[in-house]
Each structure stands twice: as structure tokens, then as C-alpha cells.
């Protein structure tokens, strides 16, 4: 199996989006803004959606 097809990469993609969402949420407070939950929700959901798409690409491709 090629290293890029390892299932852990699916989690990395999702975590990357969720980390951006967390920075977006937590960064607002010290800068004097309110947390904008709509954007945080979209980033979190995008992380899950992107993980699923990556899973489809990895698991859906044939071995040969």
C-alpha cells in the first residue's frame, strides 16, 4: 500500500479543518470579538465531509 493511501490520512484531513475552526473560534476572544459559531460549524462540518471524501478516494480505488 502506498503511504498516501493509509487510512490515517483521512483523519489528518478532517483534523486540519477542525483545527482551523478551533483557531477561528478561540482566536476571536483575545482579539475582542464574539465567537462566530456559524463559521465554526461550517468548518467543523467541512472537516467531516472532507474526511469522508478522502475515505471514498482511498477505499474506493482499486488495488491495481
Amino acid at each position, binding site marked *: 500500500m502506498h503511504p498516501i493511501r493509509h487510512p490515517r490520512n483521512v483523519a489528518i484531513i478532517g483534523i486540519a479543518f477542525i483545527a482551523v475552526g478551533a483557531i477561528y473560534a478561540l482566536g476571536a476572544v483575545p482579539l475582542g470579538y464574539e465567537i462566530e459559531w456559524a463559521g465554526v*460549524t461550517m468548518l467543523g*462540518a*467541512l472537516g467531516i*465531509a472532507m474526511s*469522508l471524501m478522502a*475515505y471514498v478516494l482511498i*477505499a*474506493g480505488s*482499486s488495488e*491495481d
Partner: protein
Amino acid sequence: MTADSHALTPPAEHSPVAGLAHDARGGISNPILGMILFITSEIMFFAGLFAAYFSTRANFVDANGVKEWPPSQFDHILNPFSIILVATVILVLSSVTLQMAIWAIRRDDRRGFLRNMAVTFVLGIIFLLLQAYDYSLLFEEGMTMGSGPFGTTYYTLTGFHGAHVFGGVIMLGVVLYRGMSGQFSSRHHDAVEAASLYWHFVDVVWILLFSILYFL
């Protein structure tokens, strides 16, 4: 591999990867692939609804200039420890029984599969009936779609979820009917796996909905 050797060697049909059915070439099976893609689009659909809810909530100010959510006239109506909690428990229970049905068909226990599928199907219908009853109680209390941004977002979110549960119940009904016709076995049950993915997704969305609408 030549065509002849391929014919002599039976393919490793539906060898599970991550617990899901795959086709003979190692790729993911079409029903599962289609359902995962559909669920991915549904995640973004519900994310849009949740985002709209949060945006509406953040900008809401009532007629008296008070920033309060839920608005004071609906504060006492939305009680999480009511019929809606029973509906939530029933939906979570239905996911458990559906998973038991999946485990049963994977070990070729068709009787256990049909029993658990039938229970899941009935629990799905009960959830819908309880939600309809809860709506009737809210209507009696004066909370409708026209009750400002709160009523609109509440019924939009729960209504779209209810529509998805309704679709899921139809899906479960088709799977149950096909199961009763003997169309599924431990080797051929992709439709069951696909339906279960959808049902679990609908369940998770409800838990988020319930938590956000009633507790946040």
C-alpha cells in the same frame, strides 16, 4: 493476471475494509460509495442549516430591544425533559437495534436480522409520531412557523430532520421487505449496510439538534 487465471481464481468477494462492503477488485461497493457521497452532501446541508440558526441567534433582538434566546415567551415551552426526550431515546435505541441487525446478517442469522430490522422500523415510526405530537403541543402553546426567527429556525431544523427520518423509515421498510423475501445473506447485504449508514447519520444529526435547540 490473464483472463484465464482470473476465471480460475474466485475473487475475494466483499472482503471487509473498515467494516464496509467492498467489491471483488478491492474497491468500495457501489451502494456504499453512493451512500457515503450522499451523506457527505447531507452533512453540508445540515451544516448550512445549523449555521443559519447560529447566525439568526447571534443577531436576534426582540421588539423590546432585549437580546435573549430563546425569546422569553417561548422559554417555558421548550422543555427538554418532556416527550422530546422520549423521542430522542427511541431514536438512539433504533440505531442500536439496527446495528444488531447488521451484526446478525453479517453472521447469516436471518431471523435475528429480520427481528431487529422490524424493531428498528417500528421505532422509527414511533419517533415520527412523537415528533408530530410534540409539534401539536407547541402549536397549542402558540409556537408556530410564524413565531419570529425562533419559531422559523426551530421548525426548519426539526422539520428537515423529520423529513430525513421519514425517508429513512421508507428505506428501512424496503430493506425489511427485501429481507423478508430472502434477498440478503452474509455475502450480499450492501443495501442493509447503506441504509444503516444513513440511519446512524440521521441519529447523530438529531442528537446535535436536540442538544443545540434545547440545551445551548
